């Protein structure tokens, strides 16, 4: 396997594996937020705001993986 093929494989693995954790995390955040909204519908606005923030934090890990994948693919 030559270097170019390894690069492609590395990029795919980077984003593929790097998306697992944030995916699970975002799922957990979403489920807990839904639960909270179900228990306390009056607080839905606050919960939603904080949910989006938390999702953004979890998502940034995936973005780092995307950066690595882009670097591998295009540099």
């Amino acid at each position, binding site marked *: 396997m030559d270097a170019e093929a390894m690069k492609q494989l590395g990029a795919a693995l980077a984003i593929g594996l790097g998306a697992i954790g944030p995916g699970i995390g975002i799922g957990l955040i979403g489920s807990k937020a839904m639960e909270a909204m179900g228990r306390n519908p009056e607080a839905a*606005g*606050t919960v939603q*705001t904080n949910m*989006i*923030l938390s*999702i*953004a*934090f979890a*998502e*940034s890990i995936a*973005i*780092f993986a*995307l*950066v690595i994948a*882009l*670097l591998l*693919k*295009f*540099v």
Partner: protein
Amino acid sequence: MASDEQGRDELDPIEAPVAGESAPTAAELAAEMAAVDAADAAKAASAAELDVAAIVGDAAPAVAPVAEPVVAVAPTAAVAPAVVAASVLATDTAAPEAAVAPAKAGMTTRLTESVKRNPSRWALWTTLIVLLVLGFFWPNVPQPHVVLGGEPVLPNGPRWITNSMLTTFVVDAVLILLALLATARMKLIPSGIQNFVEMMVEYFWGLAEQIAGKAARTYFPWIMTIFLLIIVSNWTGLIPGVGSIGWEVQGAAHEEPALHEDATGARFEGQLAMANGSLILLAPESSAVEAPAAAEEGGTYFVPLFRAPSADLNLTLALALITMFMVQFFGVRALGFSYFRKFFTFSGKGYMRFINAFVGILELISEISRIISFSFRLYGNIFAGEIVLATMAFLGAFLLPMPFYMLELFVGFVQALVFTMLALVFFSMATQGHHDDSHAEAHS
């Protein structure tokens, strides 16, 4: 014979209004009857005619004296009896295919009726199907042209006039125009564009007050500006023509021949340098001015005139830098120079001293990583969305990208909201005291 009669029936302007909606059906039936057998045809047709006339009776007062009396007589109510009579007659004359044929003919007639009733819906469906088929067989769909950042529009002009820069100017103009239009004739009871803008502003004012409390007045202009700029630049990438209108540019002659050895390598290397500026350590000589795909397409390459500004790292990095600078600024303004004790601290007793010092270093690192996550979150989302749209358009032109357009509209909005809210939270976090809740802050 059947189709002949049906065609004549549809074309004849005199018969159509008199016959009503189901006239073609009756005509079809009669035609089929006539087609059954040479010997029984006349009997069958006349029988059907008689049946129809007898059953309909006074329901059909307007009997037009034309060549085919069956067609003229049959009103809406005559369909069912006519079908019954026809089927009975068909079985009588022992022609099995004749029993099947009326149903089929009736379906096509119903289809034409439906087309006549609401042509717009049928036009929509037909267009969709034609587009679907066309999309699969469309020849020479251009391959998705992945460019990481903006490219200089003018081949010999200044390097900093990139297509994303140009689009940023357009976005600015749109925003200024929006502001002018919204505030041109302000009324106490808003309407139209003023109403829309007020709604938006009120929503974000509520958000700012909810998160920042009394300091919302200070942060609000920043976050509102950031939100408007980001959402408009996110959505510009979805306008047809952005990214697809452009021209072929001659590859630069002074490119080093070493880069030409591997065409794809040269292309990607050149593009990344343009996209990432100094973040990626590449020589500025090898940036995007030098011919992507120069070796492939006879020395020219395509440069789009417009490109979504947030699909270029330059804009998102600039926004992140500004935001994080303002975070420090607000922090210093609220807390004085004690703000920096968040990063360099030796407070505490005993070994807590070192732990706090280490936490300060972590704070410093997290402050820097926020710049990266801010800029790459927005850039990655919008750029990935553009690639997804281009790939879907490549796989199945016209129809396949449509759901992804919806998705990208949503993603553009959510990313603008996330950027705005994170900026707001960081602003308000920096202005709060560092002693009580320094360990509770989020690390991104």
